[in-house]
């Protein structure tokens, strides 16, 4: 089996899993309980929060633990919009967002908010002039993913933040699920930041929203005492601790890991180009972990299935498609229906080897010959 879908999810790191199991076995007290076992579990949560704040230089942020990035995005978008609807009901976002952001924006639009979506520029970057032109007196929030999950387009968060500093009443949210633990990030550029554990070799079912401390939110999940007034529910100390361990491990030797991935990405691109005539790399400037490529001879879901049959797992992106193949984002970026129908995402990790790449190329050649 060759796994090349690390942007969808990652295998859990053994150390993360062992920590999770051990804390479940030993420190299973409710962090809200005032007895010794509860206090020890609470200590685990507090220490993890400090670890995350230190790693992300996020001392000015509260770490609100959630069930994952989807819940964190819900809390950021709905929580901020509903809390501040008296100030305005206008939100600006981009076409590069994950469906969990899109769904929240559609929900808010149905409930009377006005949402503007920035257009897709030729190079994939947000057009700052367009962003500024859309800002109105009633704009309360801008939400832009730092890295798009389908194409790996990286936005210039520094430039976006610099522009928005001229509008102090507008908060900036960024879904950094594809960025945190994988590349250098500066969360201080934003007011609300989302990330998830399972994209960084953590456990599925935990993520966080970083909330700049003066930003108020309306809770999405109401409940009893928790680590945050903005998210009810018994704090899941073992999951929370596992998130901290995953993040610490993700940033261990991060430069070497990225260098390895850059090397793999170059190798993969060059082998694809020398082996196949009818391919198109859909964003040459993407982050090295993601290679979105169109194989013109195969609809994306057919290629994905053929590779899956050979034990190689990649991904197709079907945003705005009810099934099968068609990437509206690739279409918007390239203007090519053919490339939109035939695009697949190969996502790499520091765990990927050159042999994995060779096996992928071999399988692609076989599929190509079998379908001549």
């Amino acid at each position, binding site marked *: 089996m060759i796994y090349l879908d690390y942007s969808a999810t990652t295998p859990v790191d053994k150390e993360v899993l062992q920590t999770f199991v051990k804390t479940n076995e030993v420190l299973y007290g409710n962090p809200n309980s005032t007895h010794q076992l509860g206090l020890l579990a609470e200590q685990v949560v507090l220490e993890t929060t400090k670890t995350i704040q230190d790693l992300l230089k996020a001392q000015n942020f509260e770490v609100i633990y959630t069930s994952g990035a989807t819940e964190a995005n819900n809390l950021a978008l709905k929580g901020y919009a509903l809390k501040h609807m008296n100030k305005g009901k206008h939100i600006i976002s981009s*076409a590069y*967002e994950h*469906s969990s952001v*899109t*769904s929240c*924006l*559609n*929900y808010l*639009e149905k409930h009377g908010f006005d*949402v*503007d*979506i920035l257009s897709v520029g030729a190079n994939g970057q947000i057009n700052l002039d367009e962003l500024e032109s859309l800002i109105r007196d009633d704009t309360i929030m801008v939400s832009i993913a730092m890295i798009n999950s389908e194409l790996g387009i990286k936005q210039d968060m520094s430039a976006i933040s610099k522009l928005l500093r001229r509008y102090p009443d507008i908060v900036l949210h960024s879904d950094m699920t594809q960025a945190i633990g994988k590349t250098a990030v500066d969360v201080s550029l934003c007011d609300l930041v989302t990330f998830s554990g399972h994209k960084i070799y953590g456990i599925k079912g935990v993520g966080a929203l970083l909330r700049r401390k003066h930003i108020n939110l309306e809770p999405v999940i109401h409940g009893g005492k928790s680590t945050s007034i903005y998210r009810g529910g018994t704090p899941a100390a073992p999951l929370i601790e596992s998130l901290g361990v995953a993040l610490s491990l993700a940033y261990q030797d991060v430069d070497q890991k990225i260098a390895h991935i850059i090397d793999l990405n170059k190798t993969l691109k060059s082998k694809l180009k020398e082996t196949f005539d009818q391919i198109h790399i859909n964003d040459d400037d993407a982050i090295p972990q993601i290679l979105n490529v169109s194989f013109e001879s195969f609809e994306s879901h057919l290629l994905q299935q053929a590779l899956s049959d050979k034990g190689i797992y990649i991904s197709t992106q079907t*945003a*705005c*498609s*009810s*099934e*099968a*193949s*068609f990437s*509206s*984002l690739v*279409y*918007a970026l390239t203007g090519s229906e053919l490339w939109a129908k035939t695009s697949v995402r190969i996502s790499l990790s520091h765990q990927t080897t050159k042999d994995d790449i060779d096996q992928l190329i071999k399988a692609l050649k076989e599929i190509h010959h079998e379908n001549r």
Partner: protein
Amino acid sequence: MKIVRITAMWCMSCLAMKKTWKQVFNAFDDIDIIDLDFDFDADQVKNYDIGKTLPILIVFNQDQEIARIIGEKSKSEMMSILQELHEKIQ
């Protein structure tokens, strides 16, 4: 003219089109919109055999389907498609 508009909560193109639709439909006084959600109204949606791409507008004249408008369109494209359809049925 009746338009069955099929969208989904997770669909960015659907969200991006909402302003354009509002502006274009305001220019016509005989358009009746019926909204269906791809997931929540799945039983009704399956009657339309909509294929792969969202959003989709299915245009009817006197209960006869006359056109399908699929995916993202600019305001001018939408306007000219609807004007042409109007001319056709008059």
